Every structure is written in structure tokens, then in C-alpha cells.
């Protein structure tokens, strides 16, 4: 996706993280790349955002209070409004060998490297599964 395409129709990306700086800075960086970014501090808030605004992609932390990333994914899969929205998992502690919900198309370890995340976002939004 080119910058121009994004300028014309910026995709809405929902970033979910209970860690303040991770949330703010990832949102800042994605905004700078032309995305429209919404934020939520946990799974419960994320479901509220999803209900309010059409979302193209969710980037969520795994470990969060109230509702963690895994539970958020399962809730999304159980709701026909959200079950086709792709998800990217991020975590500093998540065991990578644990099976993930099927809407999780990519996983990035924290500390995140933005260029890797951005590449993943573009790939997923293009409709290609990550390699």
C-alpha cells in the first residue's frame, strides 16, 4: 500500500495495550505512516472501539487486565461483526509455542521493532498471510 492510497482512504487500526508508552508510541508511529489509529487499554475497551468504528486491523498485546488478547480474539471470532478482522499479537512474555486463535495472523515479540510491525501490517492489509 502506498502513502497515497493510505492518504485517500486511511485504514483504521486499533492498537490495544495496557502499557502506556507502548500504546502511545505505536499509535504515534502508525499515525505518521498515514493510518487512522484508535487505542484501547484492554480487551473490554477494544470491544467498545470495535463496536463504534469499522476497524481494518487489530494490534493487541497478549497480557492485559480485565480481558487479555487471547480472550479478545475469541470474543471477536464469536461475533460476526468482527470475526473477519485480522489480529496481530504482541507480547514480551507470551509463549510462542502456545496455539493461537485463528484470527491472529502474526506475532511480534516486545520490545517491538516498528519496521517489522509496519511490514506485517502492510502485508496483512494487502490480504496476504504472513510467511
Amino acid at each position, binding site marked *: 500500500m502506498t502513502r497515497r492510497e493510505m492518504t485517500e482512504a486511511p485504514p483504521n487500526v486499533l492498537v490495544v495495550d495496557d502499557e*502506556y*508508552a*507502548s500504546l*502511545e*508510541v*505505536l499509535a*504515534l*508511529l502508525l499515525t*505518521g505512516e498515514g493510518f487512522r489509529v484508535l487505542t484501547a487499554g484492554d480487551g473490554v475497551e477494544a470491544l467498545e472501539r470495535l463496536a463504534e468504528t469499522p476497524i481494518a486491523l487489530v494490534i493487541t498485546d497478549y497480557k492485559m487486565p480485565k480481558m487479555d488478547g487471547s480472550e479478545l480474539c475469541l470474543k471477536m471470532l464469536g461475533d460476526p461483526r468482527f470475526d473477519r478482522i485480522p489480529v496481530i499479537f504482541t507480547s*514480551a512474555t507470551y*509463549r*510462542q*509455542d*502456545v*496455539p*493461537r486463535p485463528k484470527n*491472529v*495472523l*502474526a*506475532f*511480534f*515479540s*516486545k*520490545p*517491538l*521493532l*516498528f*519496521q*517489522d*510491525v509496519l*511490514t*506485517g501490517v502492510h*502485508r496483512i492489509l494487502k490480504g496476504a498471510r*504472513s*510467511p
Partner: protein
Amino acid sequence: MIDTNQPRPATEPDDAWRLERTKTGVSGLDAILRGGLVRGAIYLVMGRPGTGKTTLGNQLCFAHTKQGGRAAYMTLLAESHAAMLKNLHTMSFFDASVINNGLSYVGAYRALRDEKLRGLLDMVRRVILDEKATLLVIDGISPARALAENDVALKEFVVELQMLSAMTNCTTILLANMTATDANDPEHTMVDGLIELAFEHFRRRTLRTVEVLKFRGTRHLLGRHELEISSAGVSVHPRLEDLLDGSGKPAPASDARLLTGIRELDTMLRGGVLRGTNSVALGFSGSGKTTLGLHFLNTGAEAGEPGVLFGFYESPDRICQSSERVGLRLREHAAHGKFTHVWQPSYEFGLDRLGARLLGEVERIGAKRVVIDSLDGFRQAAFDPSRTIRFMTALLGELRAREITTIMIDETMKPSGPEMEMRVEGISALVENLFLFEYMTVGPRMRRLLSIVKQRASAHETSAREFFLTGRGIEVAPDAASAAEVVAHTDDFSARHNERPRPPEGV
């Protein structure tokens, strides 16, 4: 990115947690940091005006571009870029060709003033991404503090800046005009590392220092280290005893002997000094100690063992002249890389700079022999005299670990015993071999005696011998007979009831 369909074993090390290092390119600093800055981390470099923050910040940028990275130097309320570059252009690290071609200078004060910390953070984001910067220096962080809405806002800014650095893998350095005693604010607790540049005053001398107060993820070298600013920019001289702490493997004890070049002295030593040991030649001014050192180095050079004379007093040309007068060919050996004279006035350098120079030269020529002329040069160079013995312990340990045989010259205040003391307190315990040079007055004549007070792990001759300074250098009498005659008739000794000199303190 991890493919969710290809789970990895949980035990596989995670690349995200591996600390990637960025070499600073500043001599000595990477040694203190044990390998350099951590890539993507954020550091605060603080110090009063004149301590070298701006020079260091710029040097880091130029060095980073030289290593293939891209750097940005961002100023808030600081001197203009033109004025700064004008001041820096004489430094050898300065390279005009990289400016706007790998190194960008950016003014960010307007963004801060107009949009506060949020505007500054967005400016940082744009600079890092647009310039593809892997190193960012922000000079003058104080205005950010002044323009922050409150302490919480400042803390949020620092945390976000830290996260931004990590996510973009861009190492960030904040330069701040403050000292460690002021460092109790949010920005100090949040950063990954705190480095303080300071002045240290000792009598009328002033020394620049650098101290790493905090460095996450690394067991850095503690303490204050000497920092030098020259035309080459900033260089750091780590405290030798910290730098070498436990790093040198002790060399295996050797039975091999090295000839001193003075035949009868070698006989007294039962074949020369043991390889890898250190010796002190102790005596009054003019007694022949330096000449012994020249013999030792000349003999080594002729045997294919390169040597270093580390001197504080006589110039290289004067040393070569002196050696030629006694038939030694040090000038020729120097031309063939078998001898080198490192000469420096002791008051110009601190201990660690001296140590680095000596070990650097030893490394450069592959030295097997070293003569230090004299120990007092180190003593005078020490800002804290009580540190000299710790420094010398480390230095001698390193030379021993490299199997280098060392002679140190030490001057006494008296021409002869019994009360001849070494001037570096505590050094005698480190000394393995001790040669005593004495003047005796017999009637109108000054006569010289040479004794071996100790030779560790080896027998040696216990009698003193008379020696002579001739056109062939030092010549030692073939036996102790003339020395006995000198002792029997010397005015000094008769006044002391023919008392033989006692070994110096601690021996």
C-alpha cells in the same frame, strides 16, 4: 514476524531480548561500557558547561556515520549549528562530507515551543524515520523540562521517547547541563543509562572525568575515569586497575633468563633476570640506573626482543646520544623497530593515560622488555597519590601476564644506605628483583657499589661489587674484593660503624 502456524520451541532464545551494541567510536569509552551503547536505548549525558558534552555528542554522530550508521543531531535552545560546526571543524573526527549525507542537524525548539512535548516527540519521530537515523543526539534537554506542563508530562515524554528509541532501534542520547547531584528528576530514573562528565580538581591541576552512573543490562566499569579532549576529540582513559581487573591470565612461571647486557651483573644474578619478572634499580641521581636500562634494552634488541623505554625526563635524542657514548646502538635499533622511546613529562598526563600509552606501545612493537624511567614519574602523575600503588599493581600484573620483563628505575634521596627508601609507598612488595646502586666516598673519590638485594625464586650473589661507568657503559668488578675495600674505608660507612645498608622498606 512469527508465522502462527509454525510454533517455535519455547526454549529458543528470543532475538528481541538480545542486546545489540553500537560502538561509540570514542577511544576508551566502549571499554568502560563493556562493548558500547545498547542499540535502541536512551542515555542521558550530563555535565557542567565545558565538560565536553557537545564535543562528545557530535563525535558520537561522526563516528557513527563512519561505521555506516546514520545520525541526527537535534538542538533545542543551544548554540547555532553554524557556530557549533565552526568550533568542531578543527577536530580530526569532523568530516564535512557526511553532513546532510548520513548526518543531519535539526533545530527542534520551535516544535517544542509551539506544540510542547507532544510536538517535540512527533518531531523526533519524523527525524528518526525520515533520516533513517540509528543514532540521535538531543542537545540541551533543559527547555523541554521548562516547557513541560508538569512533572508527570515530562515523565510521560521521557518514557515515550524511550519507547520510540526502542521501537525504531535508534539509540538516543540526551545532553543536559546538570550534575549528578541534581539528577533526581523523572528523566534520570527513566533513562537506560546515566553518564556524567565532570571536572576534578587536585591542587592546581584540573582533570576532566567521565563516570557511568547507570547502564542497564551491562556490568559497566564503575568509578571516575580520565577524559581527554584534544584535536582528536574526546578520548577516555579507563582506570587501569578496573580495566584489567582479573582479565589478565597469569603467565606461567618461566625459568628462562634474560641477559641484562652487563656481564658480571648477569653472573651475580646466576644467568640474568627471570623472564616476565620485574626489577627495580634503586639509587641516587647519576648512579648509573638509566645506563643499566639502556644496556638491558640494547641487549634485548640485539637478541630480537623489542623493548620500550618509558621515560619522563630525557628526550629521545638525548637517550640515543647517551647510549652512543657508551657504545650502545639504540638509535639503530629504533630504526629497525626493536627499540622505542616513549617520552612524556609526567605533569601532562594522568596515570591512566600513561598506562594506556605504555601498553599501547608495548602492543605496537611486540615488546618483550620494558624500562620505566622512573617510578617517580608515575607518582607525580597521580592526582590521588594513594592510588599509585593500585595502579602499579595492575600495570605490573599486565606486563607480567604478557611475559614482559621490566626494569623500573627509582631514585633515592640518599646516595647510600642504610636508610634508602622507595618513593612509591607499598611498591616494594610488588618488586621481584631489587638492584641497589650506591655511592661511597673514599677520601676524595666517589665510588659506586652494586648489590642484588633480592631476586625472587632464584639464588643470587649476596655480596656487593664495585662498578664503573666507562666508555663501554657499566662495568662491574669481577669479584667483591674492591667493594669490601670501599666499605672498609668509606667515610660514610665508618661513621656508621661499617653498617651494611638495610634493604629498603618492606623488602
